[in-house]
């Protein structure tokens, strides 16, 4: 009796040899969802900080953070959505080892929000199925170091009524 594996080898040997593919590699499309990013977390190779108004790349995040970012993202889609609006008018473009980049918004200190229908939109109203993944606080600190103090009051220290600060 012929084993199944051997049969496959025999049949393969009978096929015509394929013509080598010389076309450029197709950039793999994917939905810009939190779930898709979780599945692709290990393939994130760089994170760009991109201005929302003109899509200009402002800076690239510290490569030393990538391993922790990948690990955090791979932790899965998080429950709920962050109430705090994004600190800056920027998006993060996650470049992949292969395939198209993901567009995400850093919301609060610890989360990336992805919107499949309109990836550059950072509002959640009328946005179908936004989802979030966790990222380390150090990513927020890195963006702050490159973009500057958040302009939104939610993140600021004014209003403490103490002119000398807490120290």
């Amino acid at each position, binding site marked *: 009796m012929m084993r199944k594996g051997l049969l496959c080898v025999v049949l393969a040997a009978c096929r015509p040899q394929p013509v080598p593919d010389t076309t450029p590699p197709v950039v793999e499309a994917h939905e810009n969802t939190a779930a898709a990013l979780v599945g692709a977390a290990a393939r994130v190779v760089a994170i760009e900080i991109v201005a929302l108004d003109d899509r200009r790349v402002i800076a690239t995040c510290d490569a030393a953070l990538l391993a922790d970012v990948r690990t955090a993202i791979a932790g899965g889609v998080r429950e709920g959505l962050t109430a705090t609006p994004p600190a800056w008018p920027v998006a993060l473009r996650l470049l992949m080892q292969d395939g198209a980049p993901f567009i995400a918004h850093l919301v609060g200190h610890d989360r990336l929000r992805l919107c499949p229908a309109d990836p550059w939109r950072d509002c959640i109203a009328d946005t179908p199925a936004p989802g979030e993944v966790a990222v380390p606080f150090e990513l927020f600190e890195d963006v702050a170091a490159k973009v500057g103090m958040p302009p939104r009051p939610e993140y600021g220290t004014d*209003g403490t*009524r103490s002119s000398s600060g*807490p120290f």
Partner: protein
Amino acid sequence: MSEHAVVKVKDENGADVTPKSVAVVIGTTSHAFADIAGQGLSLDLAALAAGEAKLVVTLPDHPELAFSLKISGTGSKSVGFDGNSPLCCTLSKQTASDGAAGTRTLFVFGFAMTKKHTEVVLAAGWDYHGGADNSLYAKTWRDDLWSGTTYGTGSKTTIPKVVTPTTVVTLFDFKTGNRTRYIKGKSDWHRMDKVLQGTVATDTAGGETDVAITKRHDDDSISIVHVYGYIQDLGVAAAGSLLRLDIFSHAWVGGPIMINTFETAAFSSTTTRDPGDKDGRSKDFDSMARVADLKKAFASGGTAKMWGCQATTDNRTIVRAAARAKDKSAKMKITYAGKDFDISADEIATAIRTKILPNTYMKALAKAAGITMHGAPPGMGANLRAVGSRNYMYVDQSTYALEYKWYADVLGLKPDATGYFAYVP
């Protein structure tokens, strides 16, 4: 043949209550009830135009209570509740003798009220960036306070049934600019009244441009001052009646962000509120003229909660630095408010205990009102959770595990089930 509306009120012991006044209000015209033919406080419906109206009942130690009515008919009139009937009232149609004129139809509103008024005030900020409808969080909480169950932790939890059939739930919606009062209906809720605060609705157009923000500042539209004023009036009309104040909005260390306006330079360094500013400020209670009335409004055991964020980055940074320090007395370099400091973990703990926590909006309101107010811990942001059709705000205790542990170990502070700290007077 005539038709009359009759109002009768009993308290929780079944004793008759004499209202201070009862009236049907149509537009700006008030039609007062009077004792007619010994049938109690009554109003002949003949002179009333068909359409929407308010039945305004004022009881001793209660604020004015308005109920939505619909009057119909051209010749013979009838009257009933507009929308869902309130649970606290039984409306019956009776017939009485009208002497030589024949019979009289009575629409008898039999109210079962408590001697002591109770109320819950909810304020929903306008989500000026995200576009979410914060009134949904307020309405979920209203429903939970009635049912005695909540899903705020993600799973079903029993909570005290704060809202009874006579508790008024008042919602200030900063997106629409309206103050709407509800009382439990036989199904869903009876909408008592809806009143625009100020003279214009919140201008939600124009995004976050300087022009749009300045217009919102300058407009005579809903402000946190309307919420304070309502509570102060409650303190005068029904002292000790306010069971809860809950604020659902963006927030920061300086207070709840109801619309995201600003203080002009003339006011920002003073204790006086900028009249154009619509947001809550921790200084509000320093210069409040009627702070005693605010305090009087709250019931014994009354409480408040600000459900939004305290996501001040520097506060989180120093807590994390302190939590990770092996030697709690060793100096380390930190940056706070753009300034560099050499400071130890012990000094961070002292600063948070003596400077940061005491200067929060929650602490300021707690002191002014003599109540406990819950709010997010310094440095932590709130999240949004949907459970079926219910909507909740909460602070994620897994995200902030390091910070919560430090607050508990060093300052002895532990969160409630939804992640918020108690700020005591």
